């Protein structure tokens, strides 16, 4: 994947680009995205992938003028426009899925294929979603992965948490990223999407890791019920990070709507 930058009204947006074929825009989750992302690699073997970083992620600065759901959704369309794309396949994971769903509800005639991978955006009182903002780093893996040990190793590989300089950088990055994510997800990751999903016209697939403990799989059918004709694909032995635990399965599900 190549790292590039495109300018929108609000920010200089860094994005990763790679592969060839139909254009596909991938929106990452609150945890961010790296150039070695296994799902991006899978997608790039089938599509021309554009994966923009939300301002604050990917070593970019946070953006003060993006404050609420509408700002983020319109910013998403600004990025698509700035990239010169028409009707790209729209794919989002977790928070990115929430934004992608909003974009599709907001401009239903501009997106005909949509893939939501364990998206945020709904809230069921009987199934409260964990408060990810109050979790300490060492508590994260058990919510994110089907295999927390392997997940933890993957999250911390090459990092030295005992180095104060690293810790400082980590804190700044965390504040930038989750500070921005908090505008959509804090304290409850719901901003009225349920009332707008009826507008989505895209052919939609919803993908969920069966072991997801961050946003439990019960949210899959809840999304499915609100988007006409949506298909739900459950992935075994995968958690919220189904995108890194089972990237090939996810890519296959995306391909099925493309």
């Amino acid at each position, binding site marked *: 994947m190549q790292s590039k930058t495109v300018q929108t009204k609000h920010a200089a947006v860094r994005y990763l680009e790679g592969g060839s074929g139909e254009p596909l825009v991938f929106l990452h989750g609150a945890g961010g995205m790296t150039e070695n992302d296994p799902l991006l690699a899978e997608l790039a073997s089938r599509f021309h992938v554009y994966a923009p970083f939300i301002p604050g992620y990917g070593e970019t600065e946070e953006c003060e003028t993006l404050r609420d759901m509408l700002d983020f959704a319109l910013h998403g369309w600004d990025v698509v426009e700035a990239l010169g794309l028409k009707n790209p396949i729209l794919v989002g994971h977790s928070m990115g899925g929430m934004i992608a769903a909003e974009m599709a509800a907001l401009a239903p005639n501009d997106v005909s294929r949509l893939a939501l991978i364990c998206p945020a955006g709904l809230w069921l009182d009987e199934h409260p979603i964990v408060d990810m*903002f109050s*979790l300490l780093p060492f508590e994260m893996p058990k919510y994110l992965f089907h295999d927390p040990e392997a997940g933890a190793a993957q999250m911390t590989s090459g990092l030295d948490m005992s180095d104060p300089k690293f810790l400082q950088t980590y804190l700044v990055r965390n504040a930038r990223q989750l500070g921005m994510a908090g505008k959509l997800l804090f*304290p409850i990751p719901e901003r009225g999407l349920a009332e707008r999903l009826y507008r989505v016209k895209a052919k939609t697939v919803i993908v969920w890791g069966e072991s997801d403990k961050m946003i439990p799989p019960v949210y899959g059918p809840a999304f499915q019920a609100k988007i006409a004709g949506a298909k739900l694909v459950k992935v075994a032995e995968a958690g919220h990070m189904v995108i890194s635990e089972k990237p090939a399965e996810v890519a296959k599900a995306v391909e099925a709507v493309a």
Partner: protein
Amino acid sequence: MKFTWFNLMPWPYLPDDFREKHHSVWVDIDQRLFDPAKSNAVYNTYMDLLEYADTLGFDGIGVNEHHQNGYGIMPSPNIIAAGLARRTKNAALVVLGNSIALYNPPVRVAEEFAMLDCISGGRLVAGFPVGTSMDTNYCYGQIPALTREKYAEAHDLIIKAWTTRDPFAFNGRYNKLRHVNIWPRPIQQPHPPIHIPGGGSVETYDFCIDNTYSYSYLSFSGYLRAQALMDGYWRRVEERGAPDKSPYRAGFAQTICVAETDEEAERLYWPHVSYFYNRCLHVYPGFADAPGYRTIKTIQTGALSQYAPPRGGYTQLTWKDLVEGGHVIAGSPETVRQRLEELAKGLHVGNIFCLMHVGDMPAEKCMYSTKLFAEKVMPKLRNVFPEFADDERFWTHPLQQRAVPGSLGPAPTTAPGAAPARAPIPAE
């Protein structure tokens, strides 16, 4: 020097194994640990102690706002301050403060503070904290990265409400009000003195300096650890071109325990100090600092949240550690005097918030310590900053003649006459 007797109002019945068995003293504290029937005596004793401090000549009595918190049973400091306004005579009511980003609309704070100022005859010090991340974000659900913008808007609205004499429209991002027209308004003009609690962010330094507000560092880690932070503040005061470096531009909270001798202080107060540091400060670190709550600039300066416990936690700290490390100033009146003078001069602060009720301290010990402080320490420290003795900008300006609560005579037995109840209000 101005001395404010401060009570955080800790719940005094946290169990011995609180730290081991419970997740956090704040946010998700086990509600079953609160006993409403017992709280009746706790609240009234705590208010009695604040009133007692007024009778001993403290300049102020202080209250603050915390939510869902085992060491502060005061989600609404204004309710406590209203009680104190009636039962105290001279002390300033230092409400430190109202977390103004939490009030919808913040005009409510302008109104309640005005009421307190009117009832107390102009004795209010108004505190405007951003609020801790525990209170503001985790308990009251404010979005961390938007909290400061909302705070700033609330501040502008309150000040405008206090100082504008005609109805105005306020079209803010977070507050849309077509008719702002505060009624009542404060006695103190243009508004009560404002103190801003802060934790080391440069933005807050500048906010205080530019508006002539007093910057209050409310820490539990004592004056020795505060040196770097306060040095940063005073450097900024200079850089920003403030006209003076009055020590009343700053305040500092310090735990203080006085006894006849240093040994007696340890014997009397150690259990309660230990209760405070070991149980009351048992905050789950995940609640200490929601991402986005502090600015990037502040994190880059290296200031860690004061609720991030010291390495190894507080459990390993002994009385000796806490006293020598300056977390607690304790001992004989002479010891306390020396160390407080060191604090005041070292940090260059004129407003001292004396945390004299500590943890589960019973009233009689608290009164003993408070009385010794008022009689044997306070008088000797009055004149630490003689060159700023006339600086009145950061303290209250009460009415000379104030109403005396509870001074109604007996009810008349015949119909009262038609004489006007009072003279007309003179034109401003």
